């Protein structure tokens, strides 16, 4: 009798854990379904090539916002990739040192800082002193968000490189810098690129740190010192406005954003799987 109860309980829990996976996948499907159906109906060529239409006029697009998003993300990447990769090299090369532990701790802390707080920080150091919202400040905010992601991936991937490679280079008389940058880093490069791609996908969808750094702009701008429109901030502005037409545009923007993010994630995923298979084969 008691065993029947135990078995029954066990089966129930197993089923419940399966159900919880389904519960989590329902909102995913639900969100994607709405983004695709609502987005498709509002998406057309004009959306990619035209500027935002004035209030009340139908049509228009988000050409400037998409360009702005690209630009701000690129600035972030330019800032974060070199610093992130090199500090990752430090953390893996001198892994036992106390400073490396501190850097690792700082990266994990930074990863947990809310994006809105990073926005406030960048506002204080890059907007307030110049009394000017700017694309540069927005890029800087995204770079700060990207930095810990890149540093940690680089470090982990470098630790996976077999030490015989490094030892071989050192035995041939290479300096440490040479061994690292011509032998160890290239061996881990495909993985690092994948990590960078994932980090890009993540920061491309950020809104909060841009609200008061790169701000927004109704017009085309490629001036680093001027405020610039971005896809995410534009979606936010349109979503909370009372105009039907703007809501449609917001959905179209969301579709573009989600497509970019998901394609990046998928590509990174496939690349990772392939790399793992290669490593296992080797």
């Amino acid at each position, binding site marked *: 009798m008691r065993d029947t109860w*135990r078995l029954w*309980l*066990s089966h129930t*829990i*197993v089923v*419940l854990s*399966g159900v*919880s996976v389904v*519960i*989590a*996948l329902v909102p995913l499907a*639900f969100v994607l379904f709405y983004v695709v159906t609502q987005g498709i109906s509002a998406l057309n060529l004009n959306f990619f090539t035209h500027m935002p239409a004035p209030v009340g006029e139908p049509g228009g697009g988000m050409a400037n916002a998409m360009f702005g998003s690209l630009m701000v993300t690129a600035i972030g990447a330019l800032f974060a990739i070199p610093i992130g990769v*090199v*500090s990752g*090299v*430090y953390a893996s090369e*001198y892994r036992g040192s106390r*400073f490396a532990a*501190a850097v690792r701790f*700082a990266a994990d*802390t*930074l990863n*947990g*800082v*809310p994006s*809105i*707080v*990073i*926005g*406030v*920080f960048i506002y*204080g*150091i890059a907007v*307030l002193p110049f009394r000017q919202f700017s694309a540069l400040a927005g890029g800087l905010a995204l770079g*700060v968000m990207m*930095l*810990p992601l890149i*540093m*940690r991936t680089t470090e982990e991937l470098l*630790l996976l490189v077999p030490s015989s490679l490094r030892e071989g280079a050192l035995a041939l008389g290479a*300096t*440490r*810098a040479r061994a690292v940058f011509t032998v160890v880093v290239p061996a881990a490069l495909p993985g690092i690129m994948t990590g960078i791609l994932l980090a890009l996908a*993540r920061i491309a*969808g*950020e*809104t909060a740190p841009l*609200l008061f750094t790169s701000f927004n702009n109704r017009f085309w701008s490629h001036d680093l010192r001027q405020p610039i429109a971005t896809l*995410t901030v534009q*979606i*936010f502005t349109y*979503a*909370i406005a009372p105009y039907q037409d703007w*809501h449609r545009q917001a959905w179209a923007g969301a579709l573009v*954003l*989600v497509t970019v993010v*998901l394609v990046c*994630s998928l590509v*990174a*995923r496939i690349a990772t799987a392939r790399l793992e298979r290669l490593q296992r084969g080797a």
Partner: protein
Amino acid sequence: MTNPRQRTCSDDLWFRIGTGACALALVLIVVGIGVELLRQSHLSIARFGWQFWQTDTWDPVSAEFGARPFIWGTLYSSALALIISTPIALGIAVFTSEIAPEWMRRPLVFLTELLAAIPSIVYGLWGVFVLVPLVRQFEVNTPAWLKWVPLFTGPPLGVGMLSAALILSIMVIPFTSSVAREVLKTVPQAQREGAYALGATRWEAIRMALFYARTGIVGAIMLGFGRALGETMAVTMVIGNNPQITTSLFAPQYTMAAVIANEFTEATDDIYLSALVEIGLVLFVMTLIINVLSRLLIWTMTRSKHPKRIPRVGLRAAA
């Protein structure tokens, strides 16, 4: 000609200094965030002191700032999100690490982690136009006898605490579940085999594993809590942005992150801006404490098996 050996030594030193300088940037940024927020908020700290966190009036026109409703909104929404998301996230972790057949695991993990890849603003947009109307329907149809419970009082607006908590829990699930799965992986197989050998059912063996991993699981839940505290866009769009302290799930409320997002660019005078930065400072300190504690818990759990490896949540969850 210099001695080649000497050359190597000094080159190595320069290599260490050069790469170390880059690494220092990370430390400086974290310290810089704290210093900068403190510097920008000193006006408000000096003017209001502790009063800032003990009063409820938020009136920029007469320069009266009390931030208690925002703290309440942040903690209440995050706690609710945790209550909803924790059982689901643990269920996912158990299913994908203990129960599902091998071929199913990777695709399922990928799908659940896609939840973390969807940008916050997209959740917000979906929340405003899809979730909020659904929640409003639910609120309108709440039976009268339920209204005796203080949770279900208030006007059926749709926007409010319930919508915010639901959306937050969806966003937190992938973080908690991916760390919990990592932690479960570190439970030695012998533990489970021992349980089975003693005649345990499947659930009893899983319960064993969960108990063995309890420190790390608590860490995973706290990490999710830290995420929920700082979540901005989606919450801002559905919580109703009305500073008030109430346990009602239907009432529109306000969070710390949301008030910064909404009012920062409108803050024209110094004291207003300073008050907003002070809210940011406290949010920073709160997430810092939660994150450090949760990392410590996860670290004590995972260190034995993978030395020097703390689950990198952000990236893995985005994968």
